[in-house]
């Protein structure tokens, strides 16, 4: 009995509603569908959760308020008070990634954040946005970010390119970290599930490992959303609290 399980099959993009505009494929895919669900769920949680505006919050309101306070705290401690004007963006980012990650954990759904296109688009928005914020706030002084202080001019020739490079690498580390973690985690789950299905009664051992892995993946899903958001905060802080 050979049960064929393709560990990477789960990441296949399928066109649900094929749309072609001027030779460009803009079909509504299963990934887009899951992203839509994530957006709808986040909106529903916040809007419906806070609709009653109860003084003593119920379960849903608590959940909405907790996530709000969690991100607000994060912005306050990492960016400072003037970072609060970027709170809506940071909050949206966090909730979207968190929900996309968690929705990916639901069996037979699709892990959107395992697509580097999605994570890189998010990271690029953060990177470009932060750079624009820095330039708007500080003008050309923003470029001082790349010039370490108290360094001989000769060394600057070496250090400025390094600083510039380490700045430009940010969107890549930001996106690859998220996508690689989710991709690796989901592939591993599928591989162990394949073992469990193909070796009969002994399959309970890989199955047991898989149960632990699912718990680990839930942690990773939350942690990666947290890391993505906190790095966004740190980058914002660089642009705002320029020394």
């Amino acid at each position: 009995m050979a049960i064929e399980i393709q560990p990477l099959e789960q990441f296949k993009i399928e066109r649900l509603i094929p749309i072609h505009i001027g030779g460009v494929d803009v079909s509504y895919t299963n990934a887009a569908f899951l992203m839509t669900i994530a957006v709808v769920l986040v909106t529903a949680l916040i809007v419906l959760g806070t609709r009653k505006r109860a003084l003593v919050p119920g379960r849903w309101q608590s959940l909405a308020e907790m996530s709000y306070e969690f991100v607000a705290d994060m912005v306050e401690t990492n960016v400072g008070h003037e970072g609060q004007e970027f709170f809506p963006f940071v909050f949206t980012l966090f909730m979207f990634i968190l929900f996309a990650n968690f929705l990916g954990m639901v069996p037979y759904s699709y892990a959107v954040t395992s697509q580097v296109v999605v994570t890189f688009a998010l990271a690029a928005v953060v990177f470009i946005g932060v750079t624009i914020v820095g330039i708007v706030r500080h003008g050309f002084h923003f470029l001082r970010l790349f010039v370490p202080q108290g360094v001989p001019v000769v060394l600057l020739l070496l250090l400025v390119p390094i600083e510039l490079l380490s700045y430009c690498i940010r969107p890549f580390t930001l996106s690859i970290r998220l996508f690689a973690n989710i991709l690796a985690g989901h592939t591993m789950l599928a591989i162990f599930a394949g073992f469990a299905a193909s070796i009969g009664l002994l399959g309970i051992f890989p199955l047991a490992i898989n149960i632990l892995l699912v718990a680990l993946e839930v942690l990773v899903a939350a942690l990666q959303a947290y890391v993505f958001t906190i790095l966004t905060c740190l980058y914002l802080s660089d642009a705002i609290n320029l020394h």
Partner: protein
Amino acid sequence: MSENRPPDPLARLGEEIDKARAERVRRQPAVGDRSAMQQGLGLGVRIGIELFVAIVVSTVLGWAIDRWFGTRPWGMIVLFFLGIAAGMLNVYRAVTGVSGAVGYRPPNADAAAAKSRWDDEDC
């Protein structure tokens, strides 16, 4: 408990919330420990990929520069080493808590310090 409690349940709730808040401020160290663990976990996940991505991305960038300007193989060589340096710099900054860029100060300085730092800026 006390006899001079306001009869209004809302005011009483407000009083209780204030008390709970004061309690929370006093218990701050315990809360700090938990968030320290959370931050440590986040940090560990972060730095794993930092060096790797820095080297790969800058090497590819060097290769692309070589293709555009026909400077093979110098762009790739130079950017490979710069990538190592940049990656190490990022890891070093993440580990020492000096996240972000040059001159960035630790974020756990309280909001007041951040405010005064901001006010001191003349740029």
